[in-house]
C-alpha cells in the first residue's frame, strides 16, 4: 500500500504544454504514471506524447471522468486560478509544483480546499512518488525504490539524497511526499505522518525538516501526546543557518528567534524521536528502531 498516489492515480497535468509541463509529463509517462489528460487554455486538440490536451479541466474531466489527481505547472500568477479550477472540477488531490506563489493566494486556496475535503500538496514542492507505481512530481524516479519506508520532506533534493541513501541500503519507500518549502502549504508534516501511521504498506517513517516555522515542534508535541505506532527517524537541515536569513526556501528562515534547527531537534528528541546528524546514519537508525 501507498499513500495519496499509487496505481489507481489517474492524472491530469495543468499547464501541460509549457516547458516544465512537457518535460515532466514525458518523465512521468516514462516512469509509468497514468497521465490521462493535459490542460492548456487555447490548445485543445494538441497532444503531448500520447496525452490529449484540453481547454479546461472541466472538458478534460468530461472526456476522462476517471481523473482523480492533478499536477500543476502554470506560472505563479496563474497558479491560484488553476487550483480553483481543479477543486471546482471535483479533483481530490492537487499537487502544486509552482514556486513563488504569493502567500495570500495559497492561504486562500488552501482554506477553500479544506472546506471541500480536497488534498493539496505544495506549492513549491517536488510532488509525490510511490515507487514503481506512480510518480506525480518532478523527482528523478530512478533514485527511489519500492519498499516500506514512508518519507515526508520540506525539501526536494534533500529528499533525493536521503532516498538514495535508503535505496543503497536496501530500504525501499512506500511513498515519498515533498510537502514543499513555502511557509503556507496544503498538507504539513503532521498530516502526512498521520497518513503513514494508518498506511499498512508503511512500516517506518523518515521525516525531513528544516529551519523555519514550528511544524517539527508541533510534530514532536503530537508524538509526545499520542505516541507513534511506527518507528520514526527525523533529519533537520539548517543547523548552521544564521538567523534572519532566508535559506533558499521561502519558509526556511529563523525569524524572531523561532524556528531554529536546535529547537526542532531538541523537541523531537525529547519526544523520543531519533534525529540523524548525517544522512548516512538514517538506515541504521531505522533498522535499530524497527519493531
Amino acid at each position, binding site marked *: 500500500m501507498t499513500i495519496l498516489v499509487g496505481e489507481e492515480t489517474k492524472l491530469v497535468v495543468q499547464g501541460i504544454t509549457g516547458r516544465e509541463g512537457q518535460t515532466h509529463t514525458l518523465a512521468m509517462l516514462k516512469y509509468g504514471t497514468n497521465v490521462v489528460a493535459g490542460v492548456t487554455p487555447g490548445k485543445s486538440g494538441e497532444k503531448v506524447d500520447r496525452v490529449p490536451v484540453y481547454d479546461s479541466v472541466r472538458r478534460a474531466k468530461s472526456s476522462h471522468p476517471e481523473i482523480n489527481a492533478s499536477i500543476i505547472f502554470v506560472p505563479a500568477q496563474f497558479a491560484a486560478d488553476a487550483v480553483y479550477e481543479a477543486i471546482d472540477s471535483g479533483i481530490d488531490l492537487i499537487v502544486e509544483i509552482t514556486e513563488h506563489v504569493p502567500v495570500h493566494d495559497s492561504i486562500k486556496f488552501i482554506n477553500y480546499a479544506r472546506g471541500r475535503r480536497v488534498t493539496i500538496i505544495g506549492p513549491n514542492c517536488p510532488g509525490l512518488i510511490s515507487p514503481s507505481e506512480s510518480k506525480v512530481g518532478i523527482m528523478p524516479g530512478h533514485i527511489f525504490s519500492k519498499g516500506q519506508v514512508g518519507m515526508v520532506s520540506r525539501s526536494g*533534493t534533500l529528499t533525493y539524497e536521503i532516498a538514495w541513501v535508503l535505496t543503497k541500503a536496501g530500504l525501499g519507500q512506500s511513498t515519498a511526499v515533498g510537502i514543499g518549502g513555502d511557509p503556507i502549504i496544503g498538507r504539513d508534516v503532521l498530516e502526512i505522518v498521520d497518513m503513514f501511521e494508518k498506511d499498512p504498506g508503511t512500516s517506518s517513517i523518515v521525516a525531513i525538516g528544516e529551519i523555519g516555522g514550528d511544524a517539527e515542534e508541533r510534530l514532536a508535541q503530537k508524538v509526545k501526546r499520542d505516541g507513534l505506532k511506527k518507528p520514526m527517524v527525523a533529519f533537520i537541515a539548517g543547523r548552521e543557518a544564521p538567523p534572519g536569513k532566508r535559506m533558499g526556501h*521561502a519558509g526556511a528562515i529563523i525569524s524572531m528567534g523561532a524556528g531554529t534547527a536546535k529547537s526542532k531537534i531538541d523537541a523531537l528528541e525529547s519526544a523520543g524521536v531519533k534525529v540523524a546528524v548525517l544522512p548516512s546514519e538514517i538506515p541504521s537508525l531505522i533498522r535499530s528502531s524497527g519493531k
Partner: protein
Amino acid sequence: MKIHEYQARELFQSAGIPVPRGELCRTPEEVKKVATGIGKPVVIKSQILVAGRGKAGGIKPASDPSEAYEVSKNLLGATIKGIKVTSVLVVEAVKPQKELYLGFTVDRARRKIALIASGEGGIDLEELARSKPDKIFRREIDPVMGLHGFEARDAAVEIGLAGKTASDFVSICQKMYSIFERVDADLLESNPLAIGGETGSLVALDSRITVDDNAIFRHPEYQQVDEELTPLEREATAAGLAYVQLDGDIGIIGNGAGLVMATLDVVAHFGGRPANFLDMGGGSKADDVYKAVKICLEQENLKSVFLNVLGGITKCDEVANGLVRALKESSNKVPFVVRMVGTNEEEGRRILAESGIAYLDSMEEAAEATVRISKQ
C-alpha cells in the same frame, strides 16, 4: 520585503488611520521646516530597513526646530548598523496615555491570518510573549472571508478597551486588515498604537509592513534592494541565485535549498566553517553553474569549495561544463571538491576528468575531504 516606515505610514494615512503629523525629509533644512510647521517637539526617525534602529541611535527626539536641525545633521549621512541614512521621517512627538499593540501576520501552522493585539504595547512583542503571554490576544482570521467586524470588536473587548476607544480600535483594525490584504503583506503592525495625548483618541505611532516577496510583482512600487545584504549577496540576488554570506572559509554550492543547508551542516559536523550558502536551484544549466561558481569565488579568504550536486532535473553534464568554464577563467585557484551523482552522471564525470577535476560519490566523504583541504 520590508518596506520603509514612511511608506507604511503613507498607507496607514491614506486608509484613514490616524498617524502623528509629519513628513519625510532628505536635508536638515527640510527637517527644520517640517519641525517648524509642526510647532511642537518632534521625533526624527532614520528611514533604514534594519531591526533595532532605535537602540542603534537611529531615532532621536528634538524639542524645537533648531535642535531638530542639529540632530538631523548628525543623522543624515551617518551609517547605522552598516547602512547609510539618506532620509528621515520627522513626526510630532506624541505622549501616549497608554500604548497598545496591534498586528496581523500569516499563521503558518493554522494556515490563517493571525490578528494579534495587546493592551500592553510599546515593547517588543517577543519580549511581551515571554514575560506576559496572557496579555496577548490572538485570533485566527479566515483568509477567504477576511476580517469581520465582530472579530475586531472581540479583540477590543479582550484587551480591555471600551466606548469610543473600542470603536476607534475596531475601525483601525479593519483598515489595517484591508491594507494587509491589498499589499500582500506577511506582517503588518503598529507598535505602539497609542491612546493619544490630549484628545485620548488612537494614533498609530509606528507602522511596520513586510510585503510577501512572491507577491512583489503585484506591487512594483515596493520593489527595492534589501539594505541588509552584503555587496556579494546583492550581486548573487541580482543573478537569481539564493546566496547567503557567512563568516567561514569553505565555499558551498549545491542544487536545492534543503540539500545545501544539509551540506553546510555536514561540513560543520566535520569541523569546517562554511563561507556561504549558495543554492543554484533546480534544473540549472551550464550558464547558471558558471555564474554560481564565479560569485562563490569572489569571496575572499576561501580555503576550499565544495560543489555538491544530486542530479534530478539538474543534469551532471551541464554542471560539469559550467564548472570547468568558470574555473578556467578564474584566477582564484582555491581547491574544489566535487560530489556529483544522478542524471547524466557518466557524461559529467567524463567532462570533469578531462579537466583534471576530482569527484566523489558520497556527500559525507566529500565534505570531510573539503574540510581536510581547508585546514592544510
